[in-house]
């Protein structure tokens, strides 16, 4: 059997965090993907990639959360859940520590998400037409009726 460098197993854990960050993934799952005990895995991961697996997973989630804040109009709570985090309070704290501003303040620094909607003029024309428009000809009314309306 060919020798597989230990880092290859650690890379599986890293790939798992990159691909499935939006699930309820934790360091135990990453360790399982690498086929190592949690303590050994954490030590080796940090030695190989320069940061703890927990920090890596969190930074992946925060990076995705920042992108969602910039490009979607989802609420902060939705963004938090969308990246696999469960507590909005902890998310806000981690985000603020990382980006220097709260999620809402961060979002406010960028153009609104609607600016990412590539709505061409033809779509605007179509979608913007009033639904209630009526174009039937109005039947001519007798002069007497017009007089009563006044």
């Amino acid at each position, binding site marked *: 059997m060919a020798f597989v460098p230990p880092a290859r197993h650690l890379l599986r854990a890293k790939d798992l965090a990159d*691909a499935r960050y939006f699930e309820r993934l934790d360091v135990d799952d990453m360790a399982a993907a690498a086929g190592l005990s949690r303590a050994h895995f954490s030590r080796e991961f940090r030695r190989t990639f320069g940061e703890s697996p927990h920090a890596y997973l969190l930074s992946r989630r925060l990076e995705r959360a920042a992108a969602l804040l910039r*490009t*979607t*109009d989802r609420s902060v709570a939705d963004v938090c859940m969308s990246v696999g985090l469960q507590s909005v309070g902890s998310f806000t704290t981690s985000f603020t520590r990382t980006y220097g501003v709260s999620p809402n303040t961060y979002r406010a620094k960028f153009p609104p*998400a*609607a600016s990412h909607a*590539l709505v061409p003029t033809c779509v605007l024309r179509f979608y*913007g037409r009033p639904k209630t428009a009526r174009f039937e000809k109005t039947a001519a009314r007798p002069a007497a009726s017009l007089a009563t309306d006044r």
Partner: protein
Amino acid sequence: MIKISNAQLWVHDQDEALAFWTEKVGMEVRADATLPELNFRWLSVGPPGQVDISIALMAIPGPPVMDEKTGKQVEELMSKGFAGTIFLATDDIKASYEELKGRGVEFTEEPSERPYGIDSAFRDPSGNSIRLAQLSDVPAA
């Protein structure tokens, strides 16, 4: 130079499509914005690492954009699998096939050798046919 920025797929339910493309296929959300004044939601996804191209997942609109009859026709074409196709490529078809199948993706064609590589196909929840291939190295024209 002209490049492709977005391709478009009709979908019967944007939330279901979003879950499928992100959780099962592994794409990321590129934009998700609702324009309430137009009753329009722009939702796009794309592959991580290929940031300049996205797939817009479009709900079939009702009147006044499409009359009901046209909307039904599009819906019918889509559920028959004839409303469009997206061609995806992977470096490792075997691994991608196993991964997506493991996540419950409904494959209509298992990977098979073709003159241009190894090709397979699956469907999204709306019935759209999506091809997934490991392409051979073809010399540039």
